[in-house]
């Protein structure tokens, strides 16, 4: 069972979104997230929302999976909506009862914020649905490589991320093994209060730490043996090349941004 875990939430596919160069996807996703916060009225936000929906459809990721990524933020959505409805005041009064006063502006702001957050989460989860964690770290390394001039070791950071990703399943297996071993020795992991349960985890985490250090030591040996000396003088097997599709995606995003700026200018701002 545990052998089947996949890291991240990558959904294998061959859609247009899958094919965009991961570097371009990374940059564009961040750009669009910024643009979402530039939207000032329902027309410009509508453009973003429609874009998010079209992109979702293009990605071929099942709607069910996309909704699942929205589930963790349901509470936040509800919370912000309620706060906005009650605390933002202005415009026509729609309902007044004792100290509660719901106004036009409050409701609009609530809807606006909700749509904004949903688009935000949708777009960013599309990135992780259509890009493998490996490709993402690779892209991150390349996108951030100009930071070298500030003496930031981008390659080292990326290598650390790759290794972390690589060892997650290994360590999960290890935890499973240690838990079984401790259970076999009579360790009780499932009963008692929070404090007791937390204490019961100590005999699991101590061996895990020890074995992790041993693994790290052996891995360092293995990497040295394979002539790893850091990022300098390294080449990459998988080259990333920007294609027409990437420039098309860039063009689409630029067009959307331009449209939003224009719409912001011509219509009244909601917030």
């Amino acid at each position, binding site marked *: 069972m545990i*052998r*089947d875990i*996949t*890291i991240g939430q990558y959904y294998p596919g061959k859609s247009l979104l899958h094919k965009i160069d991961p570097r371009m996807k990374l940059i564009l996703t961040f750009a669009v997230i910024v643009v979402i916060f530039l939207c000032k009225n329902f027309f410009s936000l509508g453009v973003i929302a429609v874009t998010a929906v079209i992109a979702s459809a293009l990605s071929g990721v099942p709607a069910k999976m996309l909704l699942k990524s929205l589930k963790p933020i349901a509470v936040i959505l509800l919370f912000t909506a309620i706060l906005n409805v009650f605390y933002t005041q202005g415009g026509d009064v729609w309902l007044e009862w004792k100290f509660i006063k719901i106004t036009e502006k409050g409701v609009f702001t609530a809807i606006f914020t909700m749509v904004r957050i949903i688009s935000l989460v949708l777009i960013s989860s599309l990135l992780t649905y259509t890009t*493998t*964690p*490996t490709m993402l770290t690779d892209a991150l390394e390349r996108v951030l490589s100009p930071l070298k001039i500030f003496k930031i070791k981008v390659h080292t950071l990326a290598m650390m991320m*790759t*290794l972390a*990703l*690589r060892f997650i*399943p*290994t360590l999960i*297996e290890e935890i499973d093994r240690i838990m079984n071993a401790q259970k076999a020795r009579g360790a009780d992991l499932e009963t008692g209060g929070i404090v007791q349960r937390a204490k019961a985890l100590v005999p699991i985490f101590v061996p895990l730490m020890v074995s992790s250090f041993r*693994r790290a030591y*052996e*891995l360092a*040996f*293995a*990497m*040295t*043996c*394979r*002539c*790893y*000396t850091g990022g300098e*003088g*390294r*080449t*990459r*097997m*998988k*080259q990333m090349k920007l294609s027409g599709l990437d420039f098309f995606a860039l063009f689409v995003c630029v067009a959307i941004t331009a449209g939003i700026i224009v719409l912001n200018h011509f219509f009244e701002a909601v917030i």
Partner: protein
Amino acid sequence: MSEKLIEFKNVTMFYNDPEEAEAGENIAPALTDVSFSVEKGEFVAVLGHNGSGKSTLAKLCNAIYEPSSGTVSVKGIIADDDEKADEVRRIVGMVFQNPDNQIVATIVEDDVAFGPENLGVEPKEIRRRVDEALKAVNMYDHRHREPHKLSGGQKQRVAIAGVLAMQTECIVLDEPTAMLDPMGREEVMQTVHRMNKEMGITVVLITHFMDEAVKADRVVIMSGGRIVMQGKPREVFSKVEELRSYGLDVPQSTELCRNLGFGDGVLNVDECVELIAEKLGGAR
């Protein structure tokens, strides 16, 4: 003419310097005055029980450790600084015991590419080498899979492919099958033999399984940090009493034939079967 690829000259190795060691630290040398060499294209099996120094010997071969005294040279290069150590590692590759702790990337083919990428090989050439290496270990069909979903034997073959892709002349395997099931062990051993026979790669196999050593060109027996016996498998395994004194056993088929009084020269199951059939006076 044979050419010496790895040469140990009077190598002694301490993990703790005896003069600076604190009380209670182990100051016994891991290796004492070891001299031996590996020739190009040879298949050498190093046998010994736990603590005999066989792993230390392996790690000296590709400059992970520096000897306390004596010299280790690989193709005449003595790794006394980082640059030369790097050169040595381009000639001698290494596969470790635990397959999990030597796979670096999250995808099989990326892991195989790790070595050549470190060497700064051209991307197209890396692609070619990776495909070739994966085909050589019969893992080409699994190239897009995640390493943690492979069996132990498959992981170990990926590790071997990782060394092959670096195109080293020699590969040192430090108990590569110790953590594998019999199936995985068989897969790995077949791969190692094929590498040696078909690609002419020099192999130094560290192991404690007698049966794996039988097919080697030369067997080296270690005990207490010294080389105590050396020679062709047939010669070494016929000295049963001496082997036992070093805490080692002979291969099962050798032992059977010996106990039956059929002589000491038998090395594997096929020979054993043939010999017994012959003695019984019937054809197989």
